[in-house]
């Protein structure tokens, strides 16, 4: 049996009577790719906000390696080993690519290093170099993040989330707005990532989801309506009606 790294139990939040996320329960297993899908407004992004600490749930639990981290602020979530990327690219656009990554890798260093010259943070620097290579951004290292192409920015977005070496990585629509070629490239990166980190993904490209995911969680109107391997989920009648058009 593969061990669950991230366990979400009965997670709920409502905004003014609307149950945006309603009693969602699922697990993500170590070094596997779990994808959350669902029509627009199904509550996927809200779910991510709840798991990553951007929102506090009114009910339910988030456990990381068995430790309850429910309601912890994002900075503590990161210390606990959970990082995320954003659907709308959220980088430090005025700063260089390398500096974006270095800021994100700073948590690898002890707190004391915050007060020593930046150059002394060796581990962070090495991490930056390996991320630059890993994501094919080495020749753009000294470019301002704002000067990158959309595809490169989306890649940097993932790299920034990955920089602090989290156990669990939440990727919110990493291929958003990408060309077909870029989407393929991103899929390759995500697959490679899953060798060392547990990935939780939100994705719209169904073809990509089906061949990338180890497990798919389907949401509709705030609720989970199915969970399982892609092939099983695809055949599920509830999913068929809710997601693939009201057949």
């Amino acid at each position, binding site marked *: 049996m593969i061990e669950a790294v991230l366990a979400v139990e009965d997670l709920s939040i409502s905004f003014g009577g609307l149950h945006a996320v309603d009693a969602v329960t699922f697990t993500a297993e170590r070094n596997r790719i779990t994808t959350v899908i669902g029509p627009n407004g199904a509550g996927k992004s809200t779910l991510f906000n709840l798991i990553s600490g951007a929102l506090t749930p009114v009910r339910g639990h988030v456990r990381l390696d068995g430790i309850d981290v429910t309601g912890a602020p994002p900075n503590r979530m990161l*210390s606990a080993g959970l990082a995320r990327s954003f659907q709308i690219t959220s980088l*430090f656009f005025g700063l260089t690519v390398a500096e974006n990554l270095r800021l994100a890798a*700073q948590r690898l260093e002890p707190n004391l290093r915050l007060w020593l010259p930046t150059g002394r943070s060796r581990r962070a620097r090495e991490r930056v170099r390996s991320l630059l290579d890993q994501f094919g951004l080495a020749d753009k290292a000294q470019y301002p993040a704002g000067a990158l192409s959309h595809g490169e920015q989306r890649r940097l977005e993932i790299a920034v989330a990955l920089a602090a070496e989290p156990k669990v990585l939440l990727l919110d629509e990493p291929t958003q707005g990408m060309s077909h070629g870029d989407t393929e490239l991103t899929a390759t990166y995500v697959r490679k990532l899953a060798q060392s980190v547990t990935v939780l993904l939100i994705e719209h490209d169904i073809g990509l989801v089906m061949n990338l995911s180890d497990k798919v969680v389907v949401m509709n109107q705030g609720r989970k309506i199915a969970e399982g391997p892609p092939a099983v989920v695809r055949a599920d009648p509830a999913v068929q009606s809710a997601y693939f058009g009201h057949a």
Partner: protein
Amino acid sequence: MHDALTLDARANHWLALALGLACIGTACIGYAIGDTFYLRLATEALIFGGLALAVDILLGYTGLLSLGQALYFGLGAYVSAVTLIAFPSFWTAMGAALATGLFGGLIGGLIANRVRGVYFALITFGMAQVAAKAIYNTRSLGASDGLIGVPVLDVNLGIVTVSTASPVGFFLLALGVVTLLYALCSYLMDTPFGRLLIAIRTNEARVPFLGFRTTTLRLGSFVLASCVASLSGALYPMLRGFVSPELLFFSTSGNAVITVILGGVGTLVGALYGSIIFTIVKSVIGSWTEHHLIVIGILFMAVVIFLPKGLMGLAQPLMRRMVHRGKP
């Protein structure tokens, strides 16, 4: 090896060095011709340069516009004056001012950091205004007249003893203090702490997801700025022999903001250049007309519109080329 931000900081160090040398040159000339007035004026420019450094930490790095930094400058000045009248020791006065900056900065920071953007600007403005009014109406602090009779000091620096009555001596002492403040600020701004402040200015929402508490960082920035302002203010009564509520007024805070914008925001050294240029402009125009505010206002508006990066925006590309040369 070094990243762009570190290299920029180095470029600024060269500009700071040039400024320091120019100051020492001024001191020599002043000493040779036995000048008092201009050396006192230059000392004042340095002291207000310290206040501008504090504004730049908040505005240029953390992205917080303080319209009330004079609060800490003035508190430092009053605490220093009160201390000196009771117990004439430079180090005690500076220590008291530092404690004031730390303590006052914590309190003010906890209040002001509840909000952001224009609200931050207005609340810092309000805090300073209320404190200024309180002091203005407190008889034991001299009310609207301020405190006079701050004694002349002999500052024992170990190797030499400097009298605050000596124009050259105190000018150099102020230069030393402001240089230390500059060095401290530019050191901190080049550490990961300082980089995180820049990150907050650029995109605050993302910073918690990198694993850092933004409230703590912003409080750190606020306390640093209040300490720098307070320590600069502590020098003021040593220079002029008195303190007055005007030190806390909006015009003092506003001038510090003008200084930073004029010199170039987010460069630290720009704050010092700005202060010297501002003082020169003010006194040159002041020798023609009482209405220097019109000229300064127009100059300031022109800089905001046409030169948003200030004077350092003009100088920096040149310096950058110089420092980057030979480094890939």
